[in-house]
């Protein structure tokens, strides 16, 4: 449970945000200069809000009314800074150990060897930060924050300069932390992929204000968001449950209100709730059920509305049972198919377009 309700001033820039979330992972999302780092700094205690209240799992970190202002070292947050900020006079091993040493043994829940292996740091331990590459520095910063066994993890674009495979590994680990240790995480990112995969709840920041917040599924269904995310990433999020696994083909069937969605292997037991982001560009429409096609998911749906009147592309909002989907198709196709609100169509969703990144634990 993260509660934030603060006003922060940075020069002439005002941040005034309030959000609460009982989801373990909250994503802060917003354009460059929106005020995300400022908020994270306020939570970490490295910037003092003008007024307000910050509480994590009931522990009050800051409360201007009650004159509570825990020192940064008392907040036990693990802060992965946007620009690593490694200690230049220590080698990697000492950087990693810095916070760990200050944590009582009883409070340590992070396995040092495991984190070092995960971040691929073993051969770097003796090096000074100057002798690391940009991505290596970021990895050490992540390790340093984790090894302090924080009670809240603040990650300010931690994966920005990492390659895709490493990113995936680290994301898996973060998911694990969230899942196994119920470690609350505030995650700043520009990558919607990361956000949907990791976060349960998201807060969209624009110009120092909250422009949308709530469960990821809800927030992402709001079309106004496109200004922040770019068109490419429009889509919908479906809340589903694991129905069954097809061990033979390595597929998982997810049941949701509009039917079933077959996707590659999801690491969850039958019955567990999951969240699936289906991107508009991955959804096609057909009037008839196609035959002899590789597309696994054919969902009967009804057109709710069609976006805009100009341009080559149309976003078609669909009702699939109680759930919603968005399909992005060419205007030509919409015309060819004669789509209009109320038209009954079949939404075609490739199973492979929903990979592990698009599925999060609810």
């Amino acid at each position, binding site marked *: 449970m993260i509660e934030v309700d603060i006003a922060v001033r940075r020069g002439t820039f005002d941040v005034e945000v309030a959000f609460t979330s009982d989801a373990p992972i909250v994503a802060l999302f917003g354009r460059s200069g929106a005020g995300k780092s400022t908020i994270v700094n306020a939570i970490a205690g490295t910037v003092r809000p003008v007024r307000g209240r910050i509480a994590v799992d009931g522990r009050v970190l800051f409360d201007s009314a009650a004159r509570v202002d825990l020192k940064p070292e008392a907040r036990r947050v693990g802060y992965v800074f946007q620009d690593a900020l490694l200690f*230049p*006079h220590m080698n990697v091993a000492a950087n990693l150990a810095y916070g760990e040493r200050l944590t009582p043994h009883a409070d340590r829940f992070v396995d040092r060897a495991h984190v070092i292996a995960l971040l691929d740091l073993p051969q770097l331990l003796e090096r000074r930060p*100057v002798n690391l590459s940009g991505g290596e520095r970021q990895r050490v910063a992540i390790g340093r924050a984790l090894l*302090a066994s924080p009670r809240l993890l603040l990650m300010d674009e931690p994966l920005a300069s990492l390659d895709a495979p490493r990113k995936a590994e680290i994301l898996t680990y973060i998911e694990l932390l969230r899942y196994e240790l119920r470690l609350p995480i505030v995650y700043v990112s520009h990558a919607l992929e990361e956000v949907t995969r990791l976060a349960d709840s998201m807060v969209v920041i624009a110009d120092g204000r909250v422009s949308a917040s709530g469960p990821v599924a809800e927030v992402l269904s709001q079309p106004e968001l496109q200004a922040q995310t770019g068109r490419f990433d429009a889509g919908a999020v479906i809340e589903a449950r694991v129905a069954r696994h097809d061990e033979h083909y390595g597929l998982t069937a997810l049941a949701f209100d509009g039917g079933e969605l077959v996707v590659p292997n999801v690491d969850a037991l039958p019955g567990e709730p999951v969240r699936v982001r289906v991107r508009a560009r991955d959804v096609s429409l057909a009037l008839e059920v196609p035959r002899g096609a590789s597309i696994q998911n054919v969902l009967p749906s009804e057109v709710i509305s069609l976006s805009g009147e100009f341009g080559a592309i149309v976003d078609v909002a669909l009702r699939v049972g109680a759930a919603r989907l968005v399909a992005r198709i060419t205007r030509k196709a919409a015309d060819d198919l004669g789509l209009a609100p109320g038209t009954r169509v079949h939404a075609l969703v490739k199973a492979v377009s929903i990979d592990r990144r698009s599925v999060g634990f609810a």
Partner: protein
Amino acid sequence: MPTRDELEIVVLSLKVAFWGVAWSLPLAIATAFVLARKRFPGKILFDAAVHLPLVLPPVVVGFALLVLFGRHGPLGKVLDTLGVVFAFRWTGAALAAAVMGFPLMVRAIRLAIDAVDTRLEVAARTLGAKASRVFFTVTLPLAWPGLVTGALLAFARALGEFGATITFVSNIPGETQTLPLAIYTFTQSPGQDAQALHLSLVSVALSLGALAFSEWLVRRGNPRLEP
């Protein structure tokens, strides 16, 4: 080549300079930190007080020390009861050296502390380190070159300190006659220029040694070792 007397002088000078620096270093670090990081009313006066020994003629500083720390001085009396005697002892020479070198030390350390990226200190605090721990594990190590430079300047100053020392603790061979005092004594007697020159060279050699040592120290602790 150096006579026994000279050797005695050199040893004494080194002892005086070393202890002068060693005792004042912690205080200088604390002072530099306060000046670099704290805001308080009267700070500028405090700052000025630190610089006094630099601005005043050494003789005046010597007199001031004599008045304060002499056997009958207010501080001297108190310290006397604690068994600490500065007057006319080598300890007094060390005190004079420390006082004269103090502003140099403070300034150099402060300069280095000012140059430390405060965001690194912030990072350390989020990792659970208290302010004091941050100071010793982050700020001070990063200010290392300033520390060494400050100590070197103070040490060199101590090796060259004359006016305050001779005024405060006199020029007693074997007790307070450091190199510069010995050199002075020689220059005061006509025809002993050679000895004075000789001792000056010894002085130069010592400082060369100190310098080389300091360079080594800086290099050793430099956080920004180039690849």
